[in-house]
């Protein structure tokens, strides 16, 4: 490394490399652009038939019925409810697991536990969906009064379990990367393990932890199969986790693989809901970006 001579050619090579990397990075912009185009075309066509006011102010979502209603809020409520439950499960379990793996676990335990947790991310979402429907719901019905066969609680919890490795793996990498010198400095000042973890390690690893949570939120909102199988297909404006609801993603898969003729108003709702979901995730991400930056600056 030290022996490499810098020649004139290297500068050009450097530029090529940089341009190549920029090209790769712009692929993500092109992808977003393509997605927006696909969504926008059909969304615009939809709104030429259905006024925005109906979309925002109607309280029922029944676009495929003869008497069609196009209020988006029941679907939004369904998505937010299941995602919130998932995050309530995933974030604490994920972070605590990451702390365990990064701070307390002996290397051999870590070498087994971390891959095992990552296996959770690889279980096909269909399998999780059926697990939620056939195992988790009956189990929960034992102690949650009035829990319906299709509900938001069961898939929410299972989604949370699925998301745990996202948080754990990335947070744990961040925790691992905190230099021991910082820990040792804290110990030298008389701090115990807990104080070191909470005052030194976690703040240093915050960037990675925050990134993992952002990823988790996105994943929860965008999850499709688990809720499609176990949460139901009844759009309903409610925050009760015990009744069947429908999420935006379930509706999209229902229409995408279903019967409605492509090009019909019913089919267009697929894109409208997709666009709404995109907008929601965008707002959530900008918000978390600002928050994360404020944390980092402090």
């Amino acid at each position, binding site marked *: *490394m030290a022996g490499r001579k810098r020649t004139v050619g290297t500068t050009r090579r450097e530029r090529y490399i940089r341009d190549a990397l920029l090209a790769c990075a712009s692929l993500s912009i092109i992808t977003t652009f393509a997605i927006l185009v696909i969504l926008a075309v059909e969304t615009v066509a939809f709104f030429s038939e259905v006024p925005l006011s109906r979309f925002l102010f109607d309280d*029922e979502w029944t676009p495929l019925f003869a008497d069609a209603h196009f209020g988006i809020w029941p679907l939004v409520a369904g998505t937010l409810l299941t995602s919130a439950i998932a995050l309530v499960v995933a974030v604490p379990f994920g972070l605590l697991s990451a702390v365990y793996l990064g701070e307390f676990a002996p290397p051999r335990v870590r070498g087994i536990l971390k891959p095992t947790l990552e296996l959770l991310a690889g279980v096909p979402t269909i399998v999780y969906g059926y697990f939620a429907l056939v195992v988790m719901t009956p189990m929960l019905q034992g102690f949650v009064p009035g829990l319906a066969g299709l509900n938001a609680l069961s898939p929410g919890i299972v989604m949370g379990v699925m998301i745990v490795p996202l948080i754990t793996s990335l947070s744990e990498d961040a925790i691992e990367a905190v230099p021991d010198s910082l820990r040792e400095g804290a110990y030298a000042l008389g701090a115990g393990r807990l104080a070191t973890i909470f005052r030194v390690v976690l703040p240093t690893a915050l960037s990675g932890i925050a990134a993992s949570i952002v990823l988790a939120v996105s994943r929860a909102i965008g999850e499709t199969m688990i809720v499609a*199988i176990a949460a139901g297909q009844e759009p309903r404006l409610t925050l009760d986790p015990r009744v069947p609801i429908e999420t935006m993603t379930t509706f999209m898969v229902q229409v995408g693989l279903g019967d409605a*003729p492509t090009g019909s108003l019913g089919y267009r709702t697929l894109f409208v809901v997709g666009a709404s979901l995109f907008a929601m995730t965008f707002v959530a991400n900008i918000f978390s970006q600002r928050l994360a930056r404020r944390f980092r600056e402090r």
Partner: protein
Amino acid sequence: MVPSTRPTEVRVRTPFVLWSALLVLPACGRGSSDVVAVDGSSTVFPISEAVAEEFAREHRTRVTVGTSGTGGGFKKFCHGEIAITGASRPIKSEEVEMCKAGKVEYIELPVAYDGLAVVVHPDNTWVDHMTVAELAKLWAPEAQDKIERWSDIRPGWPNEEIHLFGAGVDSGTYDYFTEAVVGKEHASRGDYTSSEDDNVLVHGIASDKLALGFFGYAYFHENKDKLKLVPIDDGKADNGAGPIAPSPQTVGDGTYQPLSRPVFVYVSKAATDKPDVAAFVDFYLAKAPTLVPEVGYIPLPDAAYELVRTRFAGKTTGSAFEGGSKVGVTIEDLLRAG
């Protein structure tokens, strides 16, 4: 603190690259273009799968069968991307337009009946049959929040809640049920437990004494020890008087009405110029009478199959269903007319 970079780099990168190459190498090269591509409804899928399976025993042709849905299948079909699409409902007018725009001429071939069974829990002792009028009262859009108890449907039935289960609203089953029972497609109450997966409905009804639901006959047949079938009386004396329960017999001979619907396969006329496609469809229509019952559907009467075969042989295009489900008319009449 800095690791020896070269050795790690080389030792990590090389095996990774080699293994990936090994996995990917077989993938290099062009794929075959002589595939008979079938797609469409997941309801028709089991029939197409069975035909493809048998076809493969005697022919070396490559066949793929997809399940992107009746709507998705028609879109691919009308773009000329696939030769054959399965549909759980007749082609709709928007799709006719799409095919016209894509210059694709379609040959409509009914291939089987799907009976819709109305079922309740085995411990439900009070229901011995239902009339279409009662079903309409129960499932109409106006019934939401009004017809909530068994006693609301028929006096004398228990004053208990009724728990409804039914097909998802974006399915051919739902379309047909609403057309046949309520009288208007897509018109039904919204407060029922719906699922695209009929197994979920089976599970739900089998664990709820107060449940009532509908789904494809095949799902009842496979679970008959857990469910109770409800005979339906359509009030028309000329096709079997009184309440009739669905069975291969009653669906096939047209007495179980109105809840028997045909399912279709649409073939692109241009694609029939390819010998593989023509051979496959001929095989499909020849073997349908035996394969259809094996997968839980009900075969058309032999006379109807003859008409369908003639239709294919003559490459008759156009739909006999004018863009909508036709309830209560036999296939033979429609085929002879259309």
